[in-house]
């Protein structure tokens, strides 16, 4: 790695902040016995139907049911995403090549374990379930560890950036129950450190990858893969089971109509803006 002084300083700052901001998640939250169903659980502007004619065709009851379902789906995606990132970070902590970030990894792992706990608790307590995982996460033996290291941390960062888009808006939405806002606010606080860390780490891992001399095609393939990862992540926010529970028939076809809808495609670009800007800035080719 090139000059790592700046990376070390960033890690020291973030580790110090992680220590001073440390809270006991198990005593931090107010968990009311139930959340009122006549209030929204999810910001209407964040619903997967927002901006389309379908939003206008749904009854207020259906919109609230959709909001409950999409909120449980969103936290469920977090549970599954955290499982993957914990596995990947665990595989690398205190191994060659990760000497410098390992101290911060301890904070990261500890915090993510707690995030997984509060997201899972929310799902089970108020949704009665965690939506099952649909994405295939195979830990394949890496034939090119430098490439694999870059991709793993790039996926983690992009996932955290997408989640943060929602956390920030849900935390600020005064129409939502205090517990919902608190959950999202606290997650956002921890994630702002993870994202600052991840952006720097991914940039360094990209430089390391470039030092191995990938050709134009290799670099394009990586850009295509990450673009595919971003659209698969967006796709996971559209869950046919949630549509069914909200009384919308033929959830799979409904999902496809929404994913192809011009208003939704414009919204996807907004949700992904930080991620696509970041990839462009570090020089990952666009798909």
């Amino acid at each position, binding site marked *: 790695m090139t000059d790592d002084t700046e990376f070390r300083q960033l890690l020291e700052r973030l580790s110090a902040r992680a220590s001073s901001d440390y809270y006991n998640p198990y005593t931090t939250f107010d968990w009311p016995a139930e959340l009122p169903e006549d209030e929204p659980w999810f910001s209407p502007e964040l619903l997967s139907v927002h901006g389309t004619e379908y939003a206008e065709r749904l009854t207020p009851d259906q919109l609230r049911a959709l909001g409950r379902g999409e909120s449980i789906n969103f936290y469920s995606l977090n549970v599954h995403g955290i499982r993957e990132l914990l596995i990947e970070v665990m595989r690398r902590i205190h191994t060659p090549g990760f000497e410098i970030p390992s101290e911060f990894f301890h904070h990261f792992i500890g915090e993510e374990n707690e995030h997984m706990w509060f997201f899972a608790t929310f799902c089970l307590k108020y949704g009665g379930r965690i939506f*099952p*995982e*649909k*994405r*295939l*996460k*195979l*830990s394949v033996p890496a034939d090119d560890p430098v490439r694999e290291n870059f991709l793993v941390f790039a996926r983690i960062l992009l996932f955290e950036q997408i989640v943060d888009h929602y956390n920030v808006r849900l935390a600020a939405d005064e129409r939502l129950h205090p517990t919902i806002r608190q959950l999202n606010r606290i997650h956002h606080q921890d994630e702002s450190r993870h994202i600052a860390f991840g952006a720097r780490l991914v940039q360094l891992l990209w430089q390391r990858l470039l030092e191995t001399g990938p050709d134009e095609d290799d670099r394009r393939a990586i850009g295509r*893969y990450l673009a*595919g*990862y971003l*659209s*698969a992540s967006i*796709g*996971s926010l559209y869950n*046919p*089971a949630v549509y069914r529970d909200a009384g919308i028939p033929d*959830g*799979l076809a409904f*999902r496809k109509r929404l994913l192809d809808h011009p208003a939704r495609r414009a919204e996807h670009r907004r949700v992904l803006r930080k991620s696509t800007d970041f990839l462009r800035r570090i020089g990952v080719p666009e798909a």
Partner: protein
Amino acid sequence: MNDSLKPVVDWLRARNPALGEIPADLDLIENRIVDSLAFMEFILFLEDLVGRELSVTELSADQFRTLHAIEENFLAGEGSR
């Protein structure tokens, strides 16, 4: 090939136009007929087909690995219905 598999084969073909015959024991994941990013779309399609919810974990991925496994695990009995 059992008729119950036809929609699955059609789905795979639509996404891999260059694909010829798909042997029942071909590893769809290893051979990237369904890559990891398209897998969720594949699962949602299968759920719609079989009318129940499916879940994918690293430990259960083998259930989706070949046409044969998909038939055995999710479509058994549908062909004779």
